[in-house]
């Protein structure tokens, strides 16, 4: 490990920290403020668009209405994308003349982008037309991120709204939240961001692929396309689906050290800012900083562990007498090296982004354990746009419930009692991960349809399976790789896992919001459980780690953990 390596982690974190407050305050103004920015310019646009959606009066919705709107919106979007992919061959903007996408891959891809996962069982440059990428996929990159923010806001409103005399039990309006998220946040930022990327050398054209002769005299095909416009939202919306198969390791997607840094920052920017937005909604910004603090602790733990494991290098290579002065360089882009790759791998799995700038399959066993655990903790270390906030709030509910009793009061959060109904919903939420990940893993690990796709045997093969389902359930979308996923079994099982990991968790989360919003608020005093201090940060981190570790420890013990000990003893598979 080097000083420069450490400095990269520090610089990255300080930029995120510096952005959190202003961006969080901006988001608060957009979604909760009396007036929104640029009322002359964007106000009429918003009104026209909302009228077009039939919600000109923007009526408040109860949780069930909010959830129905979201599910309906996602279902229609998914169907449209599926259709575009199936009809790709006859649609325009297809200079390479790619054929229609198979039904199972179309299902998987439609599910993947609808759920903000961006798991890719295909490589973009050899499968998808520009039309499919720009209309079929980028549309979801924007809307799924906006919908995620909506769910987080709805849950936050559930905790923070004071029930009115008329017993108000509404959580806002889904269409309005999505529209504002797009209009005031995602679209304008991405416009500037894409132009910046272009300035750094990211492609943005509709040209056919170019044949060039390299210095060695070999003919090489350079893929072209509208990359920058997809790249911006890929990061900012924690989508992660690359235009090219190599994702952010590709020089046309991530050309310079500066773009590498900005890409990482843009992954964390909105999830981190939302903690501050939440703090403002609770009227006590410390409530938001506590969440930020707990996320930061887990981020640093992961980043340092991954960096240390990679810097230490591969024990088997070391035993062969080959020095590894730079650490484990297998599968890493030489432009970035160990520290920037380790940091990127941590960031992309902390937040459910899934963009990659190195090969996770080539990480050392303990190095590979970190991204896996990051995902399995529930994608709450800043997490997906919106998804991170509602995920950590569910963990807050659990923490408050388990430890809150210890102060001699029935558990309450922000003055609202956590009771049986909320616990039932929170447990439903928590159960989704083990059910999907462990359930599908157990099946895939023993049936030939699962096993024939593996590149490696032994514990590493098991890690590949575990990673695939964790990535899908966590709506992360990064691939450990080493697994050929474009088969009917994998496309279907991963597609279902992604849908489950999104909607089976959003619905209980919204239901909790619905039951919390109408609750009487007990005013806080010295006897109430404090959720805005350092002690709670520690408690929250412990609960997150214990719930995650207890669930997946047996499976992890048989995959990366065993592999680490075997590799140290120079046993390979």
């Amino acid at each position, binding site marked *: 490990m080097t000083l420069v390596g450490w400095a990269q982690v520090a610089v990255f974190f300080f930029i995120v920290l510096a952005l959190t407050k202003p961006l969080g305050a901006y988001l608060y103004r957009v979604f909760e403020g009396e007036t929104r920015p640029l009322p002359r310019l964007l106000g009429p646009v918003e009104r026209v668009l909302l009228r077009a959606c039939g919600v000109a009066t923007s009526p408040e919705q109860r949780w069930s209405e909010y959830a129905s709107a979201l599910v309906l919106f996602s279902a229609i979007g998914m169907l449209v994308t599926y259709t575009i992919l199936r009809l790709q061959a006859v649609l325009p903007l297809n200079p390479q003349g790619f054929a229609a996408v198979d039904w199972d891959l179309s299902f998987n891809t439609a599910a993947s982008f609808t759920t903000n996962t961006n798991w890719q069982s295909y490589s973009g440059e050899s499968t998808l037309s520009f039309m499919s990428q720009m209309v079929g996929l980028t549309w979801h990159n924007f809307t799924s991120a906006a919908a995620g923010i909506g769910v987080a806001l709805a849950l936050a409103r559930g905790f923070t709204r004071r029930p009115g005399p008329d017993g108000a039990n509404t959580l806002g309006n889904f269409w309005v939240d999505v529209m504002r998220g797009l209009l005031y946040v995602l679209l304008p930022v991405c416009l500037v961001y894409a132009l910046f990327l272009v300035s750094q050398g990211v492609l943005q054209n509709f040209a056919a692929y170019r044949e060039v002769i390299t210095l060695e005299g070999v003919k090489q095909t350079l893929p072209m396309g509208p990359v920058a416009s997809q790249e911006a939202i890929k990061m900012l919306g924690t989508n992660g689906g690359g235009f090219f198969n190599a994702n952010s390791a590709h020089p046309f997607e991530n050309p310079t050290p500066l773009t590498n840094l900005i890409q990482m920052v843009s992954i964390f920017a909105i999830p981190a800012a939302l903690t501050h937005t939440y703090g403002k909604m609770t009227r006590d910004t410390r409530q938001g900083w506590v969440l930020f603090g707990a996320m930061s602790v887990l981020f640093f733990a992961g980043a340092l562990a991954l960096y240390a494991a990679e810097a230490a290098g591969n024990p088997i290579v070391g035993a062969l007498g080959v020095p590894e002065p730079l650490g484990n360089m297998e599968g890493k882009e030489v432009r970035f090296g160990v520290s920037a790759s380790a940091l990127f791998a941590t960031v992309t799995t902390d937040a459910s982004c899934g963009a990659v700038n190195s090969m996770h399959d080539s990480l050392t066993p303990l190095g590979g354990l970190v991204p896996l655990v990051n995902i399995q903790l529930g994608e709450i270390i800043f997490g997906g746009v919106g998804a991170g906030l509602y995920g950590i709030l569910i963990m807050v509910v*659990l923490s408050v*419930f*388990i*430890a809150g*009793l*210890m*102060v*001699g*009061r*029935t*558990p309450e959060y922000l*003055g609202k009692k*956590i*009771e*049986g109904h*909320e*616990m*039932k919903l*929170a*447990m439903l939420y*928590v*159960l989704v991960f*083990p*059910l999907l990940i*462990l359930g599908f*893993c*157990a099946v895939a*690990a*023993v049936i030939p349809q699962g096993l024939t796709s593996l590149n490696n045997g*032994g514990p590493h*093969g*098991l890690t590949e399976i575990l990673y695939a389902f964790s990535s899908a359930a966590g709506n992360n979308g990064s691939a450990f790789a080493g697994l050929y996923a474009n088969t009917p079994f994998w496309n279907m099982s991963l597609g279902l896992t992604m849908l489950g990991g999104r909607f089976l968790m959003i619905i209980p989360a919204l239901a909790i919001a619905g039951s919390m919003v109408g609750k*009487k*608020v*007990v*005013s806080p*005093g*010295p*006897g*109430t*459980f*404090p959720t805005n201090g350092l*002690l709670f940060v*520690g*408690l929250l981190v*412990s609960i997150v780690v*214990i719930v995650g*570790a*207890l*669930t*997946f*420890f*047996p*499976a992890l*013990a*048989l995959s990366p*953990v*065993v592999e680490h000990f*075997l590799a140290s*003893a120079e046993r390979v598979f």
Partner: protein
Amino acid sequence: MAGKADATSLFEPSILKQAATQSVRKLATQHMAKNPVMFVVEVGSVLTSCLFARDLLFGHPAAPLWFTGWTCAWLWFTVLFANFAEAVAEGRGKAQAESLRKMRKDTSARKLVDGVEQSVSAATLRKDDTFVCGPGDLIPSDGEIIEGIASVDESAMTGESAPVIRESGGDRSAVTGGTKVLSDRIVVRVTTNPGESFLDRMIALVEGASRQKTPNEIALHILLVGLTLIFLFACVALVPLAVYSGVPLSTTAVVALLVCLIPTTIGGLLSAIGIAGMDRLLRKNVIALSGRAVEAAGDVDVLLLDKTGTITLGNRMATAFLPSSGVKAEELADAAQLSSLADETPEGRSIVVLAKDQFGLRGRDVHGLGGHFIAFSATTRMSGVDLDGRSVRKGAVEAIIAHVVGLGGTASAEIREVAGSIGDRGGTPLAVCDGARVLGIIELKDVVKGGIKERFDRFRAMGIRTVMITGDNQRTAAAIAKEAGVDDFLAEATPEAKMKLIQSEQAKGKLVAMTGDGTNDAPALAQADVGVAMNTGTQAAKEAGNMVDLDSNPTKLLEVVEVGKQLLMTRGTLTTFSIANDVAKYFAILPAMFMGVFPEIAPLNIMRLASPFSAILAAVIFNALIIVALIPLALKGVRYRPLGAAALLRRSLLIYGLGGLVTPFIGIKAIDLILQATGLV
């Protein structure tokens, strides 16, 4: 009641014996199904028993026979220990119910039918029947006195030996079945049908027969069931993953892992904690009519306390003699004592005592001296004595001044000044005159109970506000409130004002607790989140509240709150402990499971347990024994400390969170060493 605070020790042999048989009887599936966590353990026990039988009969075991056998035995113990904890908790209640039931002998009643007494069995009495009771009669049923006044021995109910007065009309008209009339004759209207009487309900509550899970207990149960499901997934999924990895897993080991991971410690003790909480209240002679009320007591933010009897001793006491200028204090004291000799009110008696204490003046028998006692009346507002031609009077300052002026005397302005300053201090001035001469003033004061201020400080530390309710005027109330250290007060309180105060606190999101006894308290008792009715109170008050204090001691409210908090804290700490335990169990069992195929993972066996089988068995044994070890804590409750929430949380997390992480490492290692020493492994 028989069960006074110290009557039944925590582990009385007779209760333990009964509990042991009960714990076997509770293995019945319909009982176990109520507790899903322990039900999973029971299913696991049955499964391993079948495996053991199969291995015994057909051989070729996947794991050594002794391992399956011992694991199976300890899994059964785990279930039995949890049942035992519940049975002990119930047993203590049953012992008390038994003593209550003895009171419910089939007494005969003198029923009034058209004004004629008939002797009938008490069991035949129905609501709205009337009966008569005379001296020595056991009251056959709960009822309301409609005629007469009597002294009643309620010691069977309350444990208080002094008889209480019950009379028709007003707030002291309720009588309880099973208590005994000592003097006089009363006519009583029956208010409950047989089987629904207060005594019957008490027995049912104490026995736990009508115990329902409380809201928080249900929520906690959901959490535990959720965790159990998670671990079920984790353990079931482990089987195919082990197949993939080529690791042979014995079913016994998987069941052992599952049982160790699911929260058996809290799952096994949860109902015992709930029963013990009600029981602790009962030991303080408070009956909670619902478990919900006990939980709510822990949440209370505001205590409404009646001044008289709770904050101050029941009555005002004379604390000083303040003579007029030119009068000796001793003369004033003598006159004051003379005027009070026949005054049987507590104030009067306190004057006699104060005169004796300060000046050695002995009490005299006013009738023996041949004096004539003038009783207090609302019109004259004074009392006194005519003796040897002297006419000594004491009474309200204005009344005495008017009396003296009427006799041609004068009252100095000084008297009014002194009286005014006493009022400012929260006291009551009584003027004393001999003939037309004002001798001086007696200062009467509310005496704040000893230690009450410290008690309120503790509540403040817990974040609970105390509000004093009194009929006194603002000035007096403010002075006493200051002296007692309450946070706020409501002066010149009427039942309506009390009700309004409760509603306004609740509107601010506070939970309110109060005590009350009168019928006019009933609406407020019903409105309060925790309403403790005094047993001496009316039936209406008892019906409206959700707790009844058999001792009729309003100070009890403070203890009720502490019991409520203790109950919730015990649940929280044991849950935290239970979950924290799992980390060590993983480190014991998982390496043991995989070490056969992957000997390289030996470093994960950080406890250096002897063999894979001893490791798993040690974890299972620890898991069972920790339930037994924690039974006393579950029954007694964690020690309550009046600290702020943050300090309390830090402390509990340190003891039960960190302790929960570390303890099993030590425990499992110790058991492993013992297993090795016994040569079992």
